[in-house]
């Protein structure tokens, strides 16, 4: 029996402990804001927060999520919008939007660690998140805008 907290709620799971957190969130809990993109931690679409760190849920087995606090895009901000979400909306970042949950979850952790990220910081933090529509230019601008908003 695996116990964990997802978006503040206590949960238990008694299925296959090798199941990646991604499929637990999506198929079992119905939290579909976290996306499947590659299954190999190559694209970042499945990024969630585990104990305050950005992780790829597609390669995180439930066994290693045991006892942790998980936050998904649905609860990135418990009240209103997170500054990252505000910036994403203000700069009209998404096209298809599929990768953007992962992008924003990753960006939120970047800003927590580095409230005023340089371009190089943004490169380092965001290079694991693919956007096939090609919204990168706006993602970079939005991270800088979110940094201003949080300041």
């Amino acid at each position, binding site marked *: 029996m695996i116990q964990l907290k997802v978006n503040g709620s206590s949960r238990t799971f008694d299925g296959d402990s090798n199941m990646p957190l991604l499929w637990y969130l999506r198929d079992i809990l119905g939290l579909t*804001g976290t996306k499947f993109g590659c299954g190999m931690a190559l694209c970042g679409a499945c990024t969630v927060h585990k104990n305050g760190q950005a992780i790829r849920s597609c390669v995180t087995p439930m066994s290693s999520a045991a006892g942790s606090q998980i936050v998904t895009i649905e609860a990135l901000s418990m009240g209103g919008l997170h500054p990252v979400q505000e910036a994403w909306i203000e700069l009209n970042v*998404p*096209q298809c939007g599929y990768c953007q949950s992962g992008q924003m979850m990753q960006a939120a952790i970047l800003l927590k660690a580095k409230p005023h990220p340089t371009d190089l910081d943004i490169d380092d933090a965001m290079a694991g998140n693919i956007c096939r529509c090609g919204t990168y230019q706006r993602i970079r601008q939005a991270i800088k805008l979110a940094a201003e908003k949080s300041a």
Partner: protein
Amino acid sequence: MKTIENVSRRRFLRGVFGAGAFVLAVRCVPVSLAQGVVDALNDANRATFHPSLFVGIQPDGTIYIVAHRSEMGTVIRTSLPMVLADELDADWKHVKVDQAVGDKRLGDQNTDGSKSVRTYFNTMRECGATARMMLIQAAAQRWNVPALECSTEIEVVVHKPSGRHAGYGGLASDAAKLAVPPKDQVQLKKPAEWRYIGKSMVSIDLENLCTGKAVYGIDARVNGMVYASIEHPPVLGGKVRALDDKETLKVAGVKRTISIDPFKPPAAFQPLGGVAVIADNTWAAFQGRKKLKIDWENGPNESYDSSEYKKELFDAAHQPGKVIRSVGDSDQEFGRNKTIYEADYYVPLLAHVPMEPMAALAEFKDGKVTVWAPTQNPQAVQAIVSSELGIPPESVICNVTLLGGGFGRKSKPDYVAEAAVLSKKVGRPVKVVWTREDDVKFDYYNAVAAMYIKAALDEKGKPTAWLQRSVFPPITATFDVGAIYGDPPHLAQGWTDLPYDLPNLRIENGPAHAHVRIGWLRSVANIYHAFAVQSFTDELAHRAQRDPAEYLLDLIGQPRTLDFTNVNYPNYGADYKTYPWETGRLRNVLEMVVKKSGWARKKSETGHGFGIAAHRSFLTYVATVVEVEITDDGNIRIPRVDTALDAGLVVNPEATTAQFQGAAVFGTSIVRTGEITAKNGAIEQNNFYDYPVARITDVPAQTNVYIAESLAPPAGVGEPGVPPFVAAFCNAIFAATGKRVRDLPLSSNKLFA
């Protein structure tokens, strides 16, 4: 050709509009739709000639506008309803957009070919204007005043002489009783009166896209559903010879396995066949699949090998082919002992890899199928599900979810058909989810292409004769096993329509057999054709020691309309009188981008170069300048891209800008790493580690988009940014390094090893 009828009491709209709603349907049979570039390949689309676009107004004032095109990030489900709302004088903030199911009465729904706005702009305007006119008429009758004395403001009809006004909602039931005015009596707004058309508008889905609430096909859920993952034959046309699923059935959560029949050639949109694992959740289905033991009978495509195939393509490219267009006498001019310059260009198979892999949910019940799918073409879904299950197309309800990227892949609903076939066999709703590996290995690839170009040059380095020959397995082969030559619509994509003013010109195409499913991908044949033509032009400019932009303008020549008399030039399915090929417009965007990018001041030097290219596709004229910086170890940065476009009237400039920014990134992937290869008939690539796409560190730091002011009929914006970017990027690399990229991508090009 077009009639508008009042359909307020029609049953089929009951789900969308409540009782008493005032509903308009526009039915039209535009002949041009029958000539669509891609549609002509598709029986389902060929049969769809009765478009009906809808607007509904409730007595409480709620305005519904139906979006019948699919949303994959182009903002089309905002931009088209916005056009209707404008003519209606609706308040955009109040409009509720309803996503249509697949329904041929709505007209063509294949959201592909960059044609949503151009094919539906006028219809949406007429639909909005007709509704507005009828509301005015209803108010005029109520007040017993001439309709001509009435006008509208936002959602109210106003009678200025008496100061009376009435809201749209209150007029809805009266308007519903009126006869629809004939089309020639419907007055459209003048452009100066537009509220929304031509203004930047963000997606109606923007907030949902930023909060995880947006629902894509892979997110669809219904009670009692099971999950499926399918092991497809590794080689196209392969079959299961023997199956051992004992270990699979031991995996926790796996319920059963189901064999899916191989397709009957041609492949078209049929399921590929193979073995499906049905399970309680996606993970269990994936795990079960890994335990399958399948002995495959690969069939004749087993001999397909990309490196051998490349040689075959070039063998064909170096022999006389089928003549597509000819001017003057090229052979005679080549024979005159002139300076001859020639080059080969190559672009490999390309995969779409949208971020959302193929996925669909289907429920077969009582002889009917309901699907929820991220599809660009819901009517093709109806057609293939109907033929796979032997039920009428009308018995297939296709709900269109948001698409996590499409790029042309999701116009081909093989994955939706799989879900429907499995649901019938399982007796429960089934969600099919492809892995990324499935997506990479079982795509409808953009064709691999070999191009040969030869020019005879005068003493100033200007061509006096030009021969170009392309060879690629045609998309038509996916629908007709015998097809080996390029079809006119795809040859027309940047090949037939070489816009240069040349005394002697011959354009040819050679044969090639397809061994994988070939399909269309964002800008399609324009990718390889524009790469070859615009690279070759740049080569000639450098050879002549002339400025590439000025040389390109010189070859394009004076402003004129290209003459395609006796040439098969489908012009993207558009009427040539309405959308002529005007070289003046290509010149104009070239001059625009030269000016805006500061081209004249920018001198290339070692490690720092500027490249330029210009191309018309999907009826839109585009010119692009790319700046590159290259370090000694071959690391390429793209500090800046400038792109100018003339797409005629642009309905939504913000969405258009985003599309051209995205196109530069899409083109970056093609140039840097885009390559699918086959060995022993099977695709060699698997996932983003061996089919990489551009990341934030690879892409242009800044893409500036300049939109030419125009009231010409609207043209495409989703695809046309890709082709000139690809060529301009490679031309910039030459300017910075002296190395000419003739084989894409850079990652397998020995120049940069």
